């Protein structure tokens, strides 16, 4: 427990990753898969589920053995654990659907070096019991998946005129091909970040006059 920080309720702990510390839109972590695989909503969800699986499993194991692991070898231990679950999820995806496996390509293996996972293991799971660790990891995984879905759905709608493979606008729609190419990933991410920052600024601007008035009085 960090001094000066109040203990989060389980709900706050879970919601942290979804809103306040969203890996994609607030912490801007894990950008490599976020930009590379989000050409369609289906790929985005598959990647989100795979990452959530690794996040939750590694958080649970790291939390369970947290008192056993000497701090000198903790990073090595966490990486071995994360790499293990990535290998497991790699086999599982190939067993479930080869199509998804081919579409995600090397980015499944690259989950090993996704900074959200090691970040959570180091900053949260290694300091908390299994239940809060898993709750927090689930929230982070869900927040990451939602972020990927926000990117993937917009890119698929604009870049292919489809959502989950279903045609939305009929045959006359001319797809914005750039949206499914790498630059499109940056455009859409930039647009989402713009929207969230605008919302946040508006919220703090609403709060500011009240705080300013209070400041003058004292």
């Amino acid at each position, binding site marked *: 427990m*960090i*001094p000066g*920080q109040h203990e989060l309720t389980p709900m706050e702990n879970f919601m942290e990753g979804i809103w306040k*510390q969203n890996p994609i839109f607030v*912490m801007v*972590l894990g950008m490599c898969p976020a930009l590379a695989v989000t050409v369609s909503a289906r790929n985005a969800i598959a990647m989100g589920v795979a990452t959530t699986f690794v996040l939750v499993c590694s958080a649970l194991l790291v939390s369970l*053995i947290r008192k*056993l*692991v*000497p*701090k*000198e*070898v903790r990073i*090595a*231990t966490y990486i*071995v*654990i994360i*790499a*293990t*679950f990535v*290998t*497991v999820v790699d*086999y*599982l995806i*190939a*067993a*479930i*659907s*080869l*199509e998804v496996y*081919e579409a995600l390509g090397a980015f499944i293996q690259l989950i090993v070096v996704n*900074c959200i996972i090691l*970040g*959570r293991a*180091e*900053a*949260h799971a290694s300091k908390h019991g299994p239940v809060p660790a898993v709750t927090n990891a689930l929230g982070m995984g869900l927040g990451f998946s939602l972020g990927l879905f926000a990117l993937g759905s917009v890119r698929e709608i604009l*870049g*292919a005129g489809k959502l989950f493979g279903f045609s939305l606008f009929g045959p006359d729609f001319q*797809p914005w*091909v750039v949206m*499914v*190419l790498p630059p499109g990933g940056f455009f859409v991410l930039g647009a989402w970040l713009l929207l969230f920052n605008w919302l946040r600024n508006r919220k703090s601007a609403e709060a500011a006059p009240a705080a300013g008035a209070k400041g003058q009085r004292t």
Partner: protein
Amino acid sequence: MSGESRPMATPPAGPATTSTAMIATLGLVATLCGILIVSAYQGTLEAVSANKRIVLERAVFRVIPGAVRMKSFYASSAGIVPAEGPQPKEGVLFHAAYDQAGQLKGIAAEGAAAGYADVVRVLYAYDPARQAIVGFGVVAMRETPGIGDKILTDPAFLKNFEALDVSLTADMKTLANAVKTVKHGSKTQPWQIDAISGATVTSKAVGKGINDSAQRLLPLLVPNLGRLETAG
């Protein structure tokens, strides 16, 4: 990283960790992880190979309409052997497709060549009776959507593979005419592939993939075709 700010105070000096504890921890975690990985591998092995088989069958039946069964073989200078066994030296993999009555419908084989973004892996259907390629599909590609991936949808391009001539020379050592991709609109011979205008690199990859594969496979396959008619 996580947004939690940590004061940089030095922690109270605890008892030093012994080397044995560090090695024991790493050893224990590695063993546990090893067991997890191996069980996941063993547990999914059957499903993964079944999946691969289904994907391959679907692709083969798409390029050879009417086929309902397929068998994979290696063609080598020593003859044709079933693909279940070990791959012979210089062996080329191909798939024989049969219809309901067990009649040979065609041969499917894979070719690959570098495209615009990555290797383009194609699957083509060979009709032994006409000595021609009569079907075409893509196994894997990462070509530009809307440009390179037109090789799968462009009707004019697909027309190239209705009867692409790959007949062998009289001594059956090589193709009589190498398969070649030519500039859009300049196809004059049955062994030429008319490129898609604007997607020449991908079109050329298709031609090169088919040519390289057919040059290796057909001289080994055609002299032994008789074996396949009965293998169904």
